[in-house]
């Protein structure tokens, strides 16, 4: 063990070959017992197994069972019912409208998050130190606000009777917004939810993109300037290609987050609006599982269908990521 550190970085690191020899060099591999890497991985694997793998396997299992409050409360054996739960859900027109709404909602939210996040990242790049610090701190504060609290505050801003938004819009003579309800129209409610979701996701996305931008070598921009490229061309030809891997990861994460949006809609539905026309798949699955007459089997089946759809979408993104990784 003790000899490893003194022996390893004997040669200067000049290129990829040097780096490889440092990390995966034969000498090092020979002195570390074979089980050490596994031991080091074990805590993380155990935690993941307990928190992710087990619940997921259990979820898939009960999606094929008849499992209601009756079975839970009386400890009755649950019956395997094959695809009954899936057939029940897929036959419901409500499911398809909820799914369509969720896909559109997630698509719009991801696109807005990435576009506005990119804009803020570019802004951060050009701002002076003081303003950049101020903007970064504000964003971190927004990020630190718990979702329920943030949604409640937004809901109050847009409140029909006491909201400041209606007052400001009316005062600016942009129309009569006295007692205008932002929640009663489903599109408007989902629009407000979009505002809250994007607002909450922007800090992370723009700070990561800004970090990415700061890694772009300055001489590339200089070269672009020398060639007479304008701002847009510089962004498209220099920044964007270099940011592509980061953008893909962010798109992937945003897709997963926005497909599963729950809290924002759930809180807004409590204050107004028509639930039936504003349910997303997460809320619908929740109602199937726990709403009034619980049916955990159907809820689990809904959740699993959601996971499968999400996997199909993310598979495309992951595929692209792998290809980018191979090229570079």
């Amino acid at each position: 063990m003790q000899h490893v550190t003194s022996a390893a970085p004997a040669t200067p690191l000049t290129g990829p070959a040097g780096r490889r020899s440092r990390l995966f060099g034969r000498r090092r591999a020979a002195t570390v017992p074979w089980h050490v890497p596994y031991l080091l991985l074990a805590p993380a694997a155990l935690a993941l197994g307990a928190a992710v793998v087990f619940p997921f396997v259990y979820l898939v299992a009960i999606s094929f069972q008849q499992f209601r409050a009756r079975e839970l409360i009386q400890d009755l054996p649950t019956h395997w019912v094959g695809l009954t739960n899936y057939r029940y859900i897929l036959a419901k027109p409500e499911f398809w409208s909820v799914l369509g709404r969720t896909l559109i909602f997630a698509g719009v939210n991801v696109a807005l998050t990435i576009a506005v996040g990119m804009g803020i990242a570019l802004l951060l790049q050009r701002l002076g130190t003081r303003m950049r610090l101020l903007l970064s701190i504000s964003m971190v504060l927004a990020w630190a606000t718990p979702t329920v609290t943030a949604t409640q505050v937004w809901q109050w801003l847009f409140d029909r009777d006491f909201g400041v938004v209606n007052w400001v819009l009316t005062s600016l003579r942009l129309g009569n917004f006295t007692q205008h309800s932002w929640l009663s129209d489903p599109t408007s409610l989902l629009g407000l939810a979009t505002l809250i979701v994007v607002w909450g996701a922007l800090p992370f996305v723009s700070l990561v993109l800004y970090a990415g931008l700061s890694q772009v070598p300055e001489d590339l921009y200089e070269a672009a300037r020398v060639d007479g490229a304008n701002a847009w061309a510089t962004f498209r030809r220099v920044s964007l290609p270099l940011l592509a891997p980061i953008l893909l990861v962010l798109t992937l994460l945003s897709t997963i987050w926005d497909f599963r949006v729950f809290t924002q809609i759930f809180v807004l539905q409590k204050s107004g609006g028509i639930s039936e026309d504003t349910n997303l798949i997460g809320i619908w699955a929740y109602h199937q599982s726990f709403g009034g007459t619980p049916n955990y089997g159907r809820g689990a089946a809904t959740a699993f269908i959601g996971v499968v759809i999400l996997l199909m979408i993310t598979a495309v993104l992951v595929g692209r990521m792998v290809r980018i990784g191979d090229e570079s």
Partner: protein
Amino acid sequence: MKRSNVVVGIVALGVALVAAACGNAATVAPTADTGPLTVWLMNGSAPDAVISALNTEFQAAHPGVTVNVELQQWGGISDKTNTALSTQSPPDVLEMGNTLVSGFASAGGLADLTSKQSSLGGGTWLQSLKEAGTLDGKLYGVPYYAGDRVVVYNKDLFARAGISAPPANRDELIADGQKLMTANASVPGFSALYLPGKDWYAIFSWVFDSGGNIATKSGTKWAGTLEDSAAQSALSWVKDMRSKVGTAPGDGDETKDDSVFESGKAAMVIEAGWHYGVIAKDKPELKDKLGVFPIPGASAAAPVFLGGSNLGIAAKSKHQGLALDYIKLLAGSKYQTQLAVQGGVIPNSTTLLNLHASDPVLSVADAAAARSWFVPNSPNWASVESNNILQDMLAKIFTGRASVADATKAADQALADKLNQ
């Protein structure tokens, strides 16, 4: 060194398991049930003083038994109760909203109390609460208390609009409401009657007054009855009335009733009788200006929703005997009298209904309860509530997103889907 640590650990675990097993054996022994007794009561249902007096009396009769009263919030209570009833140490005594009892009972979560009915004073229980606690002829929920809604109004605003007596029927409600709207035209956002569109407990009083219903059962199948002409015409009337006498949101619920009334932006709200006390406490200068009257129907008072609670014992409770003794006290006439006098609720027995005779508010609420309506007694009813089926229907009608005919048709389909699942 390492090995001995493991051995010590295994031994310690074994000791702990044996100790736990002994603990279990001790608690199931029938002779010495020392509790502790866990009691779930809903927040705000009974004054603290009444419950602590009851606990003292209970503990005097059962020396050494600890009683843990845990106050629960109404939000999400259905999920929480289902989960709690499935555990090996559920709450022993539970207060349950009267629309939820049959769901818990049908899932097998509650003990059958049919044989205890006469010893609990079942002969004089309020019929509606007794029915709410009964499923397939068996008693699972002992009537605890009832409550209903009245119109709370601001006498001052009525007098200034030139109205001498509260409206006696629904036509007068519109006429008086329009006078109030005219007299307060300068107040922005004023409502003569502040009636949010999703307040289905209040709005369905007019549906039942017109002879309508939510759903009926024929054989084993439930069918929604909101498309019937009685229900449709009542809902059309409410839509018209709301547009004439108020500006409450069509898609809002009743949570803002008190604050709007207290701000002077409403002359009337429909609320449970005890809100009278809340408003008088929040805004003392309104105290002498408050009055109540029953919800006006077509010719007389409309039937009111008889809300309330029942008490049950968890089927898995290990302290069934203690739990029953606790319920005997809480549902018995001594503490029912205290609840009625100090808490302002309608007590569970017809023999106690004269307690509010001298109270100007509670006597009105008690009298209104003589004509009441209730939700379909189906174990799946909770699913209708949690999916907001009636609220969605009302919001669609009052915000103009759907016609009465279309909205009631969609609601009937949803009712059939949920009630027959």
